[in-house]
């Protein structure tokens, strides 16, 4: 069982039906596991801010969806979180592929990636770091349950400790 399978099992266990996403390489691992497990519907987005709207729309319609995106996508989503998910008290789970940490090769990923935790803290959005395969299912499941009890957003951070990092062209 891979870490991505563990995440997908926890999503299933929490009756998640819609996976709304802007991909990155970590997110693709989760999508791949979800395609294999079956029972999900996938919605590709043009921008993560849309995804907050879509998850909130699904939630007020009585269905469970999550947004999957890289840390850059959290940056694209902030006002939608602050003006919709938070004031309307809508459970809005976000699974974020973390960039800008260990092994990062892309200078354009560093600032947003490293600001992610502070941004989530400033919005009072609880965040859980997934760093080890053996507790990924437990943490994901617990975070999802908390999210639906809290009626607010929640972030799961898929770290490089867990998923490794993307090899890229070094600066020359």
């Amino acid at each position, binding site marked *: 069982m891979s870490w991505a399978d563990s995440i997908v099992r926890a999503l299933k266990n929490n009756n998640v039906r*819609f996976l*709304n996403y802007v991909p990155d390489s970590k997110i693709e691992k989760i999508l791949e596991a979800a395609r294999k497990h079956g029972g999900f*519907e996938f*919605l*590709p*987005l*043009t*921008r993560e*801010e*849309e*995804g*907050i*709207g*879509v*998850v*909130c*729309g*699904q*939630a*007020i*319609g*009585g*269905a*469970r*969806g999550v947004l999957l995106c890289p840390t850059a996508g959290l940056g694209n989503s902030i*006002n*939608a979180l602050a*003006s*919709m998910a938070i*004031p*309307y*008290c*809508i*459970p809005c789970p976000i699974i974020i592929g973390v960039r800008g940490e260990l092994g990062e090769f892309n200078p354009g990923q560093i600032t947003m990636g490293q600001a992610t935790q502070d941004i989530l803290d400033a919005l009072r959005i609880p965040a859980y770091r997934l760093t080890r395969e053996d507790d990924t299912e437990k943490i994901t499941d617990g975070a999802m349950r908390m999210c*639906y009890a809290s*009626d607010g957003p929640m972030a799961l951070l898929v770290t490089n400790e867990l998923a490794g990092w993307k090899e890229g062209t070094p600066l020359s």
Partner: protein
Amino acid sequence: MIDRAEASRYLVGRLKDELVVTSLGNEKYDLRQAGDRDRNFFNWNSMGLASSLGLGLAMAQPDLKVIVYDGDGALLMNLGSLATIAARQPKNLIHIVWDNRSYAMTGGQPTATAFHTDLGKVAEGAGYPKVERVETLAAFQNVSDRALKEPGPWFLHCLTEVKPAKSGGLSSPTANKHRFMNAIGARH
């Protein structure tokens, strides 16, 4: 040019179990003044998000018609949602855009539709199968009646005047949400 308040009264008079999600602009007040409905979801300040909220709702409730009550300025902030909606083709979605060619809420500054942008053509290019340009109340009545009956996704590009709506009458975000969800028996 259509009087948006009058058209809103016509539409609300026709509605039964349809769900309506608004944008943050003046159109939400015209909808509210046209009648108090459990199945209206009002957007206080998420500029551009109405179309995405409507898509999510249409996916969760495929047997109900979902009406997005949008404005030109707000939609211009989330044009990508047109492509996302067109890719998904939710048959139960009716996207009504009130185009007054301005940001009326913030002082009437021109939007891009005051220049060269035609939102109906953008929707067509994105891949909405049913796009109508609506310039009179009679045309609005005709096209909205059809949209309520026939499968979509529909895009009603409605040209209206720069006329602020009578404000007021909205409840708090959470009161609105609970009332809406109770009306359709939805739980988180």
